[in-house]
């Protein structure tokens, strides 16, 4: 009996390892996930432990810092996940032949899915999340409220809306680019999700990027601010938590707007090119 169990166990371990070995990319992706997690929480721990980060705007506002980050990213992470799942899902429905022979662009399908997910998440945010955040801003525990109220003026509201629209275009472009991996590689799901997790982390979602200075990584901090989602989340936090509108806000909006639109156009062209290439290589038939 024990021998039999051991044999089955052994056979399964060997088989699964063999299968895993055939998908080496997944090994690398898992390692990368682990590394990103370790680094992220190392930095967050550093923020909690140290109070001497130079020019850290959100001293005493760590909860609000995280809440705004969550609200910003929740809109895009769900849409991203649904967007990159479009090709595998259509393949599972056996619809790829129909899609290709009807000359339907995959980018269009992805954009459709991305939009519907954004609508769904926005409704959830407006009906459930934002009211709860508002309530928590009124409930007092001792001297202070659970959350500090967010600063909302007409100007901040309009700018926040603009920032969200630009971020949406940028993330849609990123979703289409990441989806091209699904056209080229088999089972590239974990890699595409790592892609979005990295963007989330580099935007300062989990920890303020200022913490990088305490590790002597100021240059890296500046590089991360070049990413649209990073500097747009930075502006959003500055406005909603502190009530400070960055001096260069118009510049940020215009530059990021241009970058996002260009990325979106390039992403659509890339997807068209990759889909055409897949008709020669047959990779869409991997599914």
């Amino acid at each position, binding site marked *: 009996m024990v021998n039999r169990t051991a044999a089955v166990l052994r056979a399964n371990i060997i088989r699964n390892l063999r299968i895993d070995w055939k998908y080496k990319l997944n090994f690398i992706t898992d390692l990368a996930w682990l590394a990103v997690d370790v680094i992220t929480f190392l930095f967050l721990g550093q923020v909690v432990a140290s109070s001497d980060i130079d020019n850290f705007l959100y001293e005493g506002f760590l909860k609000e810092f995280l809440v705004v980050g969550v609200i910003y990213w929740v809109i895009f992470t769900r849409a991203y996940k649904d967007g990159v799942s479009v090709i595998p899902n259509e393949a599972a429905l056996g619809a790829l032949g*129909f899609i290709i022979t009807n*000359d339907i662009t995959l980018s269009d399908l992805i954009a459709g899915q991305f939009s519907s997910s954004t609508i769904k998440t926005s409704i959830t945010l407006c009906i459930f999340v934002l009211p709860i955040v508002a309530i928590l801003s009124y409930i007092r525990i001792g001297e202070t409220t659970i959350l500090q109220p967010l600063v909302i003026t007409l100007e901040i509201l309009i700018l926040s809306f603009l920032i969200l629209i630009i971020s949406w275009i940028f993330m849609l472009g990123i979703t289409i680019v990441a989806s091209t991996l699904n056209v080229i590689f088999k089972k590239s799901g974990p890699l595409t999700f790592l892609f979005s997790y990295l963007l989330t982390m580099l935007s300062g979602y989990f920890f303020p990027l200022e913490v990088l200075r305490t590790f002597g990584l100021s240059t890296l901090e500046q590089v991360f601010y070049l990413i649209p989602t990073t500097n747009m989340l930075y502006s959003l936090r500055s406005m909603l938590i502190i009530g400070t509108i960055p001096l260069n806000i118009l510049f940020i909006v215009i530059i990021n707007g241009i970058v996002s639109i260009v990325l979106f156009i390039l992403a659509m062209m890339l997807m068209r090119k990759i889909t055409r290439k897949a008709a020669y290589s047959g990779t869409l038939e991997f599914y």
Partner: protein
Amino acid sequence: MTLTSDRKIIVKDVHKYFGKKHVLKGIDFHLPDGENLAIIGPNGSGKTTLLRTLASIYLPDKGSIQIGPYDLVTQTRQARRLLSYVSPNLSFHKKLTLRETLDYFSDLQGVEWRNQQELMDDIDLTRMLDSPIEGFSEGQKAMTRFLIALMKNPKILVLDEITATLDVKKKESIIQYIYELDEQRGLTILLIDHDPSVVDRLCEKLLLLTHDGKVMKYGNTSEIIKQIPYAFDVKVIPHPSVDIQSFVQELGFSHRIMGQMCQFYAKTKNEVDEITTELLNRQEEEILEFSVSGLSMEDVYWHWLLLLGIPIEDRTKRLDFR
């Protein structure tokens, strides 16, 4: 451009590679206006690859394909407007109703499904419009696939083993429906099917592929099928201890050996009776199971292999037609 020129298909020296694998090797044929073609070949011969290449799911690495007046590689978009591809793999979100499903697929194609009302009545789908797809039978799903494919009024219909998942009755009704549709609309149909009766009924032309992706025979279906005198086959799985070579020799009927299995061919029902009587006599000691069916396109293929004197590469397979 005349209407009829929209439907001719000219394939010249088409090659298709997947990585280092050379799947199609110089396919050539000319399908005249409005004629229908069946592609036949054993597993791995590239028949699905060829059909999907003709449907533009794949593009040829070498050679040219002309769909109506358009070149498939350089005018892919125009060529795709002429054709519809139907696959039994196309499934639907089960919670959506037929109306919602048709709305979705017609929006994707930029057409209006309500223009096909007459067709919907013909195939008895109108009464199902507000029913969720999860309650549909396989036959109704197959009809829905057709309806979706026909929404854009294609000139060319590409059918990828559409009857594979259907029982005999549903298969018969779908084939009859396609036949009538072809009569009304004058379509060009390209298909893969394993049933000679389907092929014989729908297709004027037959393309037989060799196991390594070359054209073995291209011609009129009636001529190709008529040269095969058999109508039935009896598949037999003998007991593993039985020497299959001597077993088939002893029975003395036309046969094909495939590894540990064999198939006997019969011209008439009387001949089927003779074979089955012989098998029943031997059942206890020598036979595990046997079944009788109509001749398949695979049998047509093997017969032609023998007629053309093409050597059978697989040594586990042997043919003896008498």
